[in-house]
C-alpha cells in the first residue's frame, strides 16, 4: 500500500470512523440477524479503501450508509437467502426514510459521552506510546527506552489498545441494540436517545 492508499486511509480515519457506531446501530435495526454485521462493516471498509479518489464524496456518512446497505444486500443474495418479503421490507424502508441523509446529527451529552467513552477505553500505556511516538516524535527504540520496556512491548501496548478501542465500540452497540429493537419505520439516521 502506498501514497494513494495513505490518502484514502486518512479520509477514512477522519470522515468514516466517527460514523461506524451509527452505521452498526442502523444495520442492527434494519437488518437484524439477517446478516453478520461484522462481515458487512469489514466489506464496507474494503470497498471504501478501493476508491480511486474520495474528492467527489460530499457526504461521507451517507456514502458509508449506502455502501453498508449495498454490501448487506449483496451478502444476502450471495448467501442464497431468498426471502422476498424480507428484502422488500428492507428495501422499502430505505425508500420510506427518504433522502438526503443528514450530514450530522448531534445530541448534546450523548455524543460527548460516546467520544469520552472511546478515549477512556484507550489504555494509558497505549496513549503514552502514541504521545511519545507521534507527539514527541521519538523512534521505536527511544520510545522503548523511555518507557523501560522492549520494542515488542511498545507494539503490544498499541495492539492491545487498538483492539480494546474497537471492541468497546462494538460492545457499546450490542448493549444499545438490546433496547432498540422494533424501530421499524423510525428514521435510522438520527443519532441520539430515542424518547419513549
Amino acid at each position, binding site marked *: *500500500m502506498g501514497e494513494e492508499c495513505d490518502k484514502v*486511509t*486518512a479520509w*477514512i*480515519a*477522519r*470522515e*468514516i*470512523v*466517527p460514523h*461506524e457506531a451509527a452505521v452498526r446501530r442502523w444495520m442492527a435495526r434494519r437488518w437484524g440477524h439477517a446478516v453478520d454485521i461484522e*462481515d458487512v*462493516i*469489514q*466489506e*464496507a*471498509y*474494503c*470497498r*471504501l*479503501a478501493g476508491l480511486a479518489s474520495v474528492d467527489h464524496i460530499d457526504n461521507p456518512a451517507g456514502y458509508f450508509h449506502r455502501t453498508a446497505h449495498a454490501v448487506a444486500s449483496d451478502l444476502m443474495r450471495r448467501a442464497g437467502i431468498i426471502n422476498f418479503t424480507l428484502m422488500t421490507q428492507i428495501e422499502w424502508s430505505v425508500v420510506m426514510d427518504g433522502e*438526503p*441523509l*443528514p*450530514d*450530522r*446529527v*448531534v*445530541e*448534546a*451529552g450523548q*455524543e*460527548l459521552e460516546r*467520544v*469520552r467513552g472511546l*478515549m477512556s477505553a*484507550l489504555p494509558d500505556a497505549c*496513549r503514552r506510546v*502514541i*504521545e511519545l*511516538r*507521534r*507527539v514527541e516524535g521519538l523512534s521505536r527504540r527511544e520510545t522503548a527506552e523511555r518507557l523501560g520496556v522492549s520494542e*515488542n*512491548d*511498545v*507494539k*503490544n501496548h*498499541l*495492539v492491545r*489498545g*487498538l*483492539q480494546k*478501542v*474497537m*471492541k468497546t465500540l462494538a460492545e457499546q452497540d450490542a448493549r444499545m441494540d438490546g433496547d432498540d429493537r422494533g424501530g421499524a419505520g423510525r428514521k435510522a*439516521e*438520527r443519532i*441520539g436517545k430515542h*424518547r419513549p
Partner: protein
Amino acid sequence: MTGAARAGRRNGLASTGPNDSIEDQAAIWAVEAAHGDMTPGNRADLERWLEADRRHRGAYVRACAWLRAAEEAVMDAHAARGPVPAGVTPGLASDNDNDRADRKQADGRWQRPALLSAPPASRFLRRWGRRIAAGGGALAASLAVLMALGVPLPSLFGTPPAVEGAEQVVRLRDGSVARLGPDARIEVALSDGVRSITLLNGAATFEVARDKARPFVVRSGDVYAQATGTVYSVSRVGDTGGTVKVMEGSVLVWPRDERDQAVRLVAGGTVTLDPGPSPLPAAGPGGQPGRRSPPPDMARISLDNVPIAQAALRFNRVNSTKIVIADPAIGDVRIIGHYKSNDPEQFAQAAAIISGGYVEHSNGEIVIRMK
C-alpha cells in the same frame, strides 16, 4: 503459522493464532505496518494474509483507520493542553442576504417581540477559533472533526469544560456553528440549494456562515427561521412551535406554509410562534385516506378555500411579476391548494381553470380574464 500469528508471536502477544478473530489479527497487522519493521518478508506475509480472505482486507483497512483516528485524537488532546493564544472570535458577516419581505406588524396571534441582550460569546469558540483558523493540515482537520462531534476538547480528559452549562459546539460542513443547549438535538441536511436544519429538541444558537446560494433554514416544530450571515437562537415550544431570538443581523420567521407572511426579526428581537396542530388533510382523488401529507417546504403558499383575489395579493407580495385579476367574478371564486410561492404563473393557470377564465400576459404582468 499465519503471518499474523508470526507477527503476534514476535511481539510476544500471548493470545495470537489462527483462532484469533479477524479483527484481532487486523489490529496486529495495522500496528505492525505503522510501527513495525516492514521488511520485504513482512510485507509478503501481510500481502498473503490480505489475499487469503476479502474480510481480512476490510478488517485491515478498518484497523488502520481506527489506529490513525486514535493517534490523531491523542495528538489533538495534547495540543489542547498546550498554551492558548489570545482569544479571537472567528468573524462572521453580520449583514444578510434575505429576500425582501414585507414587514408585518405583530397581530393578536403572535406575542410582541421583547428586547434581549445578546448572550456572551462562547469562551470555547474564542479559545479555539484562532487555532482552527491558523492551524494547517491534519491538526485543524482533526479538531474540526472533534468539534463536529460536539466534544469540547479540554473535557476529553477530565478537565472541566471552559464553557458554562452543558453547551456543546458543533461546526457544520458549511462553516456555520451550532451551539447546543442541554438536551438539544438537531438534524443537519446540507444540499445544493438549501441548508436545512431541524431542531428536534431543546434549544440551539446558530452562527450562520454566508452562502448566497443556499439559505440557512432552521425548523422548530412547524416554525421556520431563515437567515444568512446572522446569529440567532431557536428553541422548541411544545410540539409545533418555536421561539426565535436574534443576536446579529436579521431573520425571517414564519409558520408552516405561510412564508409569504414572514416576520423579519432584527437583532435584539424575539418572537414565539405556535401554529398549533395542522388540520388533517382530506383524502384526495385516488389518494390513500389517513396518509400524512408530506412536510411543507418553505417556498409554498397554502390556500384554504380563499377567494382568488385574496390569494393573488399573497403572490404579489413576494413576486416581482404581478397577477392582475381583470374581472371581479374571477376574484370571488374560491380556491384550495398548495402552490409554489415563487411561481405565480402556475397559480394563475390553476385559478383560470377553476374560475372559467384564461391567462394572458401584458406589460410584464399576468392577467386573468373571464372567457
